[in-house]
């Protein structure tokens, strides 16, 4: 059974039709990615999955149960978490407070403390800077805190909106390695990326969104080999 699903979802902003009959399913523990050009509706898809936007028709299904009309906190509590576009830390709060806010809906003190330790093991630099205001961290450090904050909710599926956006080239690689590492711990990852090459190289499957419609739905290898996709997203013209 898929962990999280969109079934025939149409989403509007006001009268504007953004998502058009979108179907997609994320299974437990897999790493999948959603590709698409600017304004194709990628972020909207994530917001619909998390419940920050309610679809006009169609269903969001979590563990086989329709959560279309459930709140965001209901979904977060059941293991869906987002790493927002551009990281968006709580800038004037300390790193520690940011992490604690990630665990906002959890009540198991022990589990929270354990996860905090786990994150410090994963990112020793975050521990060093625990009391620093997060707004003053470097871009790479902010990315670690953003990931850490998301992990603090003990998620089953992580929705990541362009995790490599705004990172220096050297960090992009490291960042993808981190994502893989988190994935290997058993967290399903649904990643929105512009960097299609890199994303597909670690993903199992992927979708391509064009003006709100899913135009391709295939395995990562197939997508990588798809000449149309290569032409439009992988920055290559014709056969490389």
């Amino acid at each position, binding site marked *: 059974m898929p962990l999280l699903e969109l079934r025939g979802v149409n989403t509007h902003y006001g009268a504007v039709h953004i998502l058009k009959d979108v179907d997609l399913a994320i299974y437990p523990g897999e790493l999948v990615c959603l590709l698409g050009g600017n304004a194709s509706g990628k972020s909207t898809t994530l917001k619909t999955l998390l419940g*920050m936007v309610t679809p006009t028709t169609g269903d969001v299904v979590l563990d086989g149960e329709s959560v279309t009309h459930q709140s965001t*906190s209901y979904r*977060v509590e059941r293991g869906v978490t987002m790493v927002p576009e551009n990281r*968006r830390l*709580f800038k004037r709060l300390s790193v520690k*407070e940011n992490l604690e806010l990630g665990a906002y809906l959890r009540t198991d003190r022990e589990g929270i403390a354990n996860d905090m330790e786990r994150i410090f093991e994963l990112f020793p630099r975050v521990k060093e800077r625990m009391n620093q*205001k997060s707004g003053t961290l470097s871009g*790479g450090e902010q990315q670690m805190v953003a990931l850490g904050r998301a992990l603090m909710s003990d998620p089953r599926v992580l929705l990541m909106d362009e995790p490599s956006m705004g990172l220096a080239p*050297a960090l992009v690689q490291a960042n993808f390695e981190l994502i893989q590492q988190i994935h290997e711990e058993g967290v399903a990852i649904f990643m929105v990326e512009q960097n299609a090459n890199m994303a597909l190289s670690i993903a199992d499957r992927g979708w391509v969104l064009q003006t709100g419609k899913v135009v391709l739905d295939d395995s990562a290898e197939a997508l990588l080999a798809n000449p149309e996709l290569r032409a439009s997203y992988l920055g290559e013209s014709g056969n490389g």
Partner: protein
Amino acid sequence: MTATSDNLSMLEAPGINWRRQIRFALVGGLSSVFIALAGMPVGLDGRNIIQPVLSMGYLALLWVPFVFASLAGSVVILEGMSERERDAKDLAAGALVGLGSSAGLIILMVLIQNFNLRDPLVNWSPQLLDLLSFDRSTGLGMLLWLILGTTLGLLGGAMHVVPAKVRSRILAVALAVLAVSVLETFLTDLLEGFGLETLTDFIYYKRGGLEVSGAIVVAALALLIPLLVGSKIEGIKTRVVEMPSEERRRVNLLLLTVGAALMLVLPFFLGKITNELLANVGLFVLLALGLNIVVGLAGILDLGYVAFFAVGGYTTAVLTSPNSPGFSPELPWPVALIIVVVLTGIVGLFIGAPVIRMRGDYLAIVTLGFGEIIRLLFLSDWLSGWFGGAQGITNIPGVDVGIGTVKGTDPRSVFLLVLVFCAIAIYVSWRLEHSRLGRAWMAIREDEDVAEAMGVNTTNTKLMAFVVGAVLASFSGAIFSAKVGSIFPTSFLMLVSIIILVVVIVGGMGNIVGVIAGALVLIGVLGGPKQPGLLQEFSQFKLLIYGALLVWMMLKRPEGLVPNVRRTRELHQEEFLQDAWLKGEIDTDDDEDSQ
């Protein structure tokens, strides 16, 4: 010198920036003229600081050359920069800035003498000219300003030439004399409470202000006391800082208990006027703590906060006064308070529910409107059968607390009651700030969308801030009602909302200690919207000073008067870490700049 050749990495602090000095001289001149034309010298001349040498009116002008000169001379010393040797040139720069300030006044004197602009500028008056001439001939007055301005500017510049220790001593002495003079009403009251009238008679002049001899004694004490006990206090401080956190917490708790106990006995040593004044301050502390939760923690810019104060006050009046025009159950105050709290909380929900969906500017404007609507409802003919319209509700009884009655004619009792509620409000604020709810508020303040993505129910959480804020305001309203004994719509003008907001901003948003300090300084010294402060002469300039303070705070100290200790410590640590990083002591292999 050869220093540059063998120590290239050492940056030299920049020399005197003459352009900056000239700018400060000009601004000083304009400020002096503005202060003079705003009527401060004449309006404040009646209040002595040191009799007969210095009145507050002259002080309003004399601080300008000194402070501007010393500000113009300050430089930020960056890391790795050596402090420049200060010399006679710095004195000259200070004198220049001081000269600028007095030049402004001299030009003003010439203009007043030759033109009459009294029509638009009410303070363009012979009295001002007389005052500026020191009641002598205009020519002599100008000469005196020239000398005074230049000398004070020189002294301002000299502040950077003398060693830092001397500088802080001089400032401490000046501030001590000023404070003792400004706090006259409070201190005489307190000293009389201890039966020390002879001391007050010695220090203070009969009709206000310090005696010269008194000023000298105060200055000497301010100079000597730190010399005698300074090192001891330092020692104790370091010992406390070095204590293990467990023990330190116990010391803090002890200090807190002693402080609280002192606060509770303080009213018994104070006279009527001071108790009254502090009771007013306390009412504003309650309001400011409430607004601090809404604005400071949750980041909701509520400009109509007075509405909850009004609802609290009016509900208390209706429930307790025999003169309540509509419904008059004449409940005892404590019982009424429960209903007041519940009702104000509900009003908070009702006003909050539609408002909470808006953000930023829209929210500010709509809350401003709600604040006025509530006042107009109380004023309206439509509801005058309940709230008495412009006649208000009178004859509100005091609070019967068993051992006595708290009522306006006995300010001591009111102050005690206010203290109890302030303690409750402080405790509640402190607990909330460190609770899960408090963290959710801060998350919303920082980034509402992300807070929602973390699972925070933003609507309910923001509503909670509104309700908690409303309840704290209702405490204040309920006490206000019983204290004044009557209640009218004019007590709840928009100005009240604005002043509470200024207290919160000046104190430092989200900072409990700061907010209390802000209320003490602003309401206690300058006065509230209608309540006189220690400096009653200031009442006509209150709003001007509030405004100036607000602008200055926003520009220079957005963190508030009392910086949050925890935050500054973080900042230092931050700086330390960044230094270490700059020096390469922390590995940076995965940092973005490595590419």
